[in-house]
């Protein structure tokens, strides 16, 4: 069987090269299917004696071990080939099982199985990204020069559109996990869409996964934020009045033509919205910024027992998605309290999964407004880099007009 030869060849090549380091660095564990036990023996031997076993020692332990001449190619060739063939084998197995599930449990279960397994395979067969920071200093200097010379790009991340946030936090950077907290009706979703709109206006492509609103509501809300009351109000769009359709069309053409995409995923388009689906959508659209609305509405693929466990699992996985895909993730979390929550922004401790959140989040921001008020209070509850901050935002949600304030 071809697979056996590739695994055997890799084992022989490792011993011939007298080096296990490249294989470990590139996470070859998952490349072994039929001879995982031999690989584990070789790896364990190296850990114990700081050198690889000879082929005779391996043969003594495993009668099926074959002696193969691997001098024709470097070790990396055998690592790559073994990985490719293990992936092919795993894909074949997944497809076979998927067909079985399709027959037994229907298309939704089969789709979910494919999504989960394809992500696992991609993760397992991919290598960790290693960098030598000493050797890479020129890359950092070049990046700094670009930002230094162009005032529009002086922050490292995607601009939030708020001077305070960008100066205190440096914009939304790759791998950031940002959480927006707020009581019900505090305008959290509006804030996240504003961040999406600001990123888009700066040339980035956001992906919004919204489990709370439908496509039309989302579209009109985004239009309102972008238009800022120039042509129409949100209520005009929602109730089909007040603005000339041609004026609306004209504005939309000018605004959206030849611009980066804004991808939206709503719950009417997906069966189960869990972390696997989120990751699959990120793979599909490759966004620059991901917005998840909202935490409590996502299903936990790991099936945590309590609500808090589910929230913690999602928090960990959303952070991992941010890091793995090198994108900032903005997660919205509604905070609820028995009785009256009072007239203040929620604290970090008032979130059921606050401890996990404290580990995972790079920025936790609470937003608050008194009932029907246009004055929002924005306050950081955790800032992993930079100083804590707070400011007011005067924002008419219906017209979209807004202004950052310190004195009210």
């Amino acid at each position: 069987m071809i697979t056996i030869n590739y695994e055997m060849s890799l084992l022989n090549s490792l011993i011939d090269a007298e080096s296990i380091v490249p294989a470990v660095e590139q996470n070859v564990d998952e490349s072994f299917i039929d001879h995982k036990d031999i690989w584990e023996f070789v790896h364990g031997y190296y850990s114990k004696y700081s050198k690889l076993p000879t082929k005779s020692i391996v043969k003594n332990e495993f009668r099926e071990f074959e002696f193969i001449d691997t001098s024709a190619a470097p070790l990396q060739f055998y690592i790559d080939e073994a990985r490719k063939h293990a992936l092919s084998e795993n894909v074949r197995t997944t497809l076979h099982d998927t067909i079985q599930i399709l027959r037994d449990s229907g298309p939704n279960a089969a789709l979910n199985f494919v999504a989960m397994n394809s992500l696992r395979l991609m993760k397992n067969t991919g290598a960790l990204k290693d960098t030598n920071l000493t050797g890479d200093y020129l890359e950092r200097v070049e990046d700094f020069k670009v930002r230094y010379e162009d005032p529009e790009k002086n922050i490292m991340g995607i601009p939030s559109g708020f001077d305070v946030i960008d100066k205190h936090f440096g914009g939304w950077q790759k791998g950031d996990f940002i959480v927006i907290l707020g009581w019900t009706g505090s305008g959290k979703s509006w804030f996240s869409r504003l961040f999406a709109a600001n990123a888009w206006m700066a040339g980035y492509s956001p992906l919004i996964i919204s489990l709370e609103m439908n496509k039309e509501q989302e579209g009109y809300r985004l239009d309102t934020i972008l238009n800022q009351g120039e042509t129409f109000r949100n209520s005009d769009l929602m109730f089909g009045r007040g603005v000339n359709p041609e004026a609306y069309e004209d504005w939309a053409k000018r605004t959206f033509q030849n611009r980066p995409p804004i991808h939206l995923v709503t719950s009417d388009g997906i069966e189960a919205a869990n972390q696997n689906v989120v990751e699959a959508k990120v793979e599909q659209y490759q966004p620059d910024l991901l917005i998840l609305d909202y935490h409590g509405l996502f299903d936990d693929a790991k099936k945590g027992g309590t609500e808090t466990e589910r929230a913690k699992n999602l928090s960990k996985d959303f952070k991992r998605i941010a890091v793995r895909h090198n994108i900032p993730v903005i997660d919205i979390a509604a905070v609820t309290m028995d009785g009256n929550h009072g007239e203040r922004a929620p604290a970090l401790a008032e979130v059921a999964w606050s401890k996990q959140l404290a580990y995972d989040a790079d920025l936790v921001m609470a937003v608050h407004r008194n009932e029907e008020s246009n004055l929002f209070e924005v306050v950081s509850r955790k800032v992993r880099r930079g100083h804590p901050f707070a400011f007011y935002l005067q924002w008419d949600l219906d017209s979209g007009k807004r202004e950052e304030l310190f004195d009210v």
Partner: protein
Amino acid sequence: MNLTGEALITCLTNTAEANGKIFFQTEKDEVNAERLVKFFAANGGAEVAQQCVERFIRNERQPVIFLLDFVVKIGTIVEEIKIENQDREEFKRLVRQTQERMKGDNN
């Protein structure tokens, strides 16, 4: 609002009315109101007393309210309001600090 028993009862009556509820007075209310005044004098004063009355009336589900109902819940409400007031002060302090930092960065 002045911090007197009479003012407290007037405040309860007016606030209840403004919220479509009835504050139902009983014989011993004046004595108990004086006791509440002493409590508020040691716990934030007239301003906190008024905030407590407003919150209590707003959250109370019964349309008819007795002073005793207020007495039973007053401890929790005062604590909530104290935390909120502290939080509000902290928020204002952080806003000022942020503003100063932003000015410093711009100079």
